[in-house]
């Protein structure tokens, strides 16, 4: 029986539209996975020696901070890991015991990349511990305990489907605790560290997480088993529709038709809401650069880079998927009396408005001195003037349909935050840095900022030209785009 399940899985993976069509993507995905595996292994091996060098007892330190690691893992799993319910429907009528289907679905989550990747941290780390003469039995029980913690997260995540407020709550508590610790007000790690250290010191203690993990598996199993009905666990939740009056947008003329629609698109779909959240996160990205927290970021060129990102979060995460946002009803758009110009103008306005708002919100960076905000400010101008067009231009080539209602694939999936889209992002980032560098070395930083700003202002002049170019692409690619959007995963 399990054999059939496995072949189904195998086929669904290798025959998915996204996977089959794009070899380059496959390579990038593999490289991405290898990168993370390499990173975890490196950290796993390096952590011990690094901490030892810093005059800290390695295992104890790891155990102290393990709480952040575990919670972060849960948050990441919630955000990225898909729930196993998707392919269950067609199996319901087959002559399997339901419990078997649930076992399979849950078992599948256990082999997810998000669990396996931790092994690449814990195994090398444990091996190093053994080599350093720690007691093998203790190391092994600690190791088992840690992996059980990861699996506890895995099964908690199964329940957490659609519990956004809870996860946001947990994440903010942890961020809050982290901040309190950083400022020396309150340190939670001594308390939680006891538990993780205990996993090492007391042999029997590893049984606690293992038993909890097994218990959670049982609970998850019966939870799913009882909800294996079309109107229960397998149903899509429907929300009551809200209508809204956006007539005030009519002042924008014919563009308003699309603008109103785009605002509804963003407000009413999971996937697009995520991009808005992402752009808020990007606002804080600059902190890494301006606080001097990371040494290699602490130079003027990287500050321009930060300025572009701080003000361009929405631009990058939304703009690069125009027109894919409209992929689910693209044939409608293609048969209606629509002017591409107005359609594009609406998207462009959204992107520019969002950049403008980010630039204003970025005023907070004044705290780090006027130069920090200057970088944000010229970054904003450059985004509005130049990147606003470039991003739409690049988007015209991205023909992956977007499933608006699903969030689970918002990252890491072929259709979004991947290396391919990152490659298109590069020129948008490198050019302003180059401009700044030229200014910086000729007449000084101020001239550098001025150059970037000037490029942005000049960009506005090319708007009509760029629109024409993009419309040309839209027309040339029309049939291919329609066909590509028809392929759903």
């Amino acid at each position, binding site marked *: 029986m399990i054999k059939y399940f496995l072949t189904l899985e195998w086929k669904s993976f290798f025959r998915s539209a996204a996977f089959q069509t794009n070899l380059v993507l496959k390579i990038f995905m593999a490289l991405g996975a290898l990168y993370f595996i390499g990173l975890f292994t490196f950290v796993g091996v390096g952590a011990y020696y690094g901490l030892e060098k810093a005059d800290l007892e390695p295992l104890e330190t790891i155990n102290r901070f393990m709480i952040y690691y575990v919670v972060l893992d849960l948050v990441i799993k919630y955000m990225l890991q898909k729930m196993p319910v998707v392919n269950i429907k067609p199996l319901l009528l087959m002559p399997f015991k339901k419990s078997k289907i649930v076992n399979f679905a849950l078992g599948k989550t256990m082999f997810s990349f998000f669990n396996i990747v931790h092994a690449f941290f814990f195994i090398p780390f444990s091996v190093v511990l053994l080599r350093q003469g720690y007691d093998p039995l203790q190391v092994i029980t600690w190791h088992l305990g840690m992996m059980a913690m990861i699996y506890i997260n895995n099964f908690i995540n199964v329940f957490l489907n659609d519990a956004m407020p809870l996860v946001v709550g947990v994440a903010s508590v942890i961020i809050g605790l982290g901040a309190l610790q950083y400022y020396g007000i309150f340190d939670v790690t001594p308390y939680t560290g006891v538990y993780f250290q205990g996993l090492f010191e007391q042999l029997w203690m590893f049984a606690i997480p293992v038993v909890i993990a097994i218990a959670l598996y049982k609970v998850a199993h019966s939870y799913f088993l009882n909800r294996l009905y079309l109107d229960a666990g397998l149903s899509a939740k429907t*929300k009551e*529709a809200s209508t809204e009056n956006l007539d005030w947008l009519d002042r924008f003329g014919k563009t308003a038709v699309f603008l109103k*629609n785009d605002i509804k698109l963003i407000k009413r779909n999971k996937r697009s809401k995520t991009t808005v959240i992402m752009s808020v996160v990007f606002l804080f990205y600059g902190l890494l650069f301006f606080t001097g927290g990371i040494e290699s970021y602490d130079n003027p060129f990287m500050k321009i880079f930060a300025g572009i990102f701080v003000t361009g979060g929405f631009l990058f995460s939304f703009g690069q998927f125009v027109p894919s946002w409209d992929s*689910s*009803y693209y*044939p409608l758009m*293609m*048969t209606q009396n629509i002017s591409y110009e107005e359609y594009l103008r609406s998207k462009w306005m959204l992107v520019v408005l969002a950049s403008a708002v980010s630039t204003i919100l970025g005023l907070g960076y004044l705290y780090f001195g006027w130069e920090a905000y200057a970088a944000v400010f010229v970054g904003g101008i450059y985004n509005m003037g130049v990147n606003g067009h470039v991003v739409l231009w690049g988007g015209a080539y991205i023909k992956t349909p977007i499933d608006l*209602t699903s969030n689970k694939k918002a990252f890491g999936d072929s259709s979004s935050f991947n290396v391919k889209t990152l490659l298109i992002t590069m020129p948008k980032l490198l050019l302003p840095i180059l401009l700044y560098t030229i200014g910086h070395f000729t007449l000084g930083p101020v001239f550098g900022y001025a150059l970037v700003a000037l490029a942005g202002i000049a960009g506005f002049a090319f708007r009509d030209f760029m629109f024409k170019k993009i419309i040309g692409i839209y027309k040339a690619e029309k049939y291919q785009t329609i066909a590509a959007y028809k392929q759903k995963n």
Partner: protein
Amino acid sequence: MIHIHDLSKTYNGVTVLKIDELQIPKGESFGLVGNNGAGKTTLFSALLDLIQPTTGYIQNGEVKVHESEAWKSHTASFIDESFLIGYLTAEEYFYFIGELRGQNKADVDKLLAGFEDFFNDEILNKRKYLRDLSKGNMKKVGIVATLIGNPEVVILDEPFANLDPTTQIRLKGIIKKLAAETGVTVLVSSHDLMHVTEVCERIVVLEKGSVVKDIKTSEATLKELEAYFSKEEPLVE
């Protein structure tokens, strides 16, 4: 109104559509029947310039559809759910289409008022997004949306499928009225021979992409079609 000339569509060497010549005059109600894979949806897609013909062209009004977009202003269509915007409510969708077709809210409301029966109180003011409607109700929305803005050509792919019996009967009334009273050219495809013979003045049968029958509808048409599709010799000729 519509003129198909030497049209063919080939995918990887397999010809799925081949029509040498077909004229659809203005105001005709035109029915397209054929088994699965006969090329009905392909023909409609080509008519709407959603796929590129391998050879030939389709002329809609004055223009060839793949050369100019002028046909879009007088043509309305509903092929499948990809013609609906899932995150809008029915009203918002109608207004959106209305705005694209130069109709203000009052115009759209006036038109919708005439479809109260057809909607059967399941569409308007329901506080539901289109993506949460049942298939049948989605179809109702899509069909009525094609009538916004007085189009001259209306193209409906399988409009009767998924509809409940009452709505099917009402839809037949709507289609008949369109062609007879307002001179709209209506193109309908269907698997339901009874419905299609009832509403269409002319019926074309496609098989493997080619026109095999082109009938002016009469009393005998239904029998003839049934005989054709049951692969027997026609009883009445």
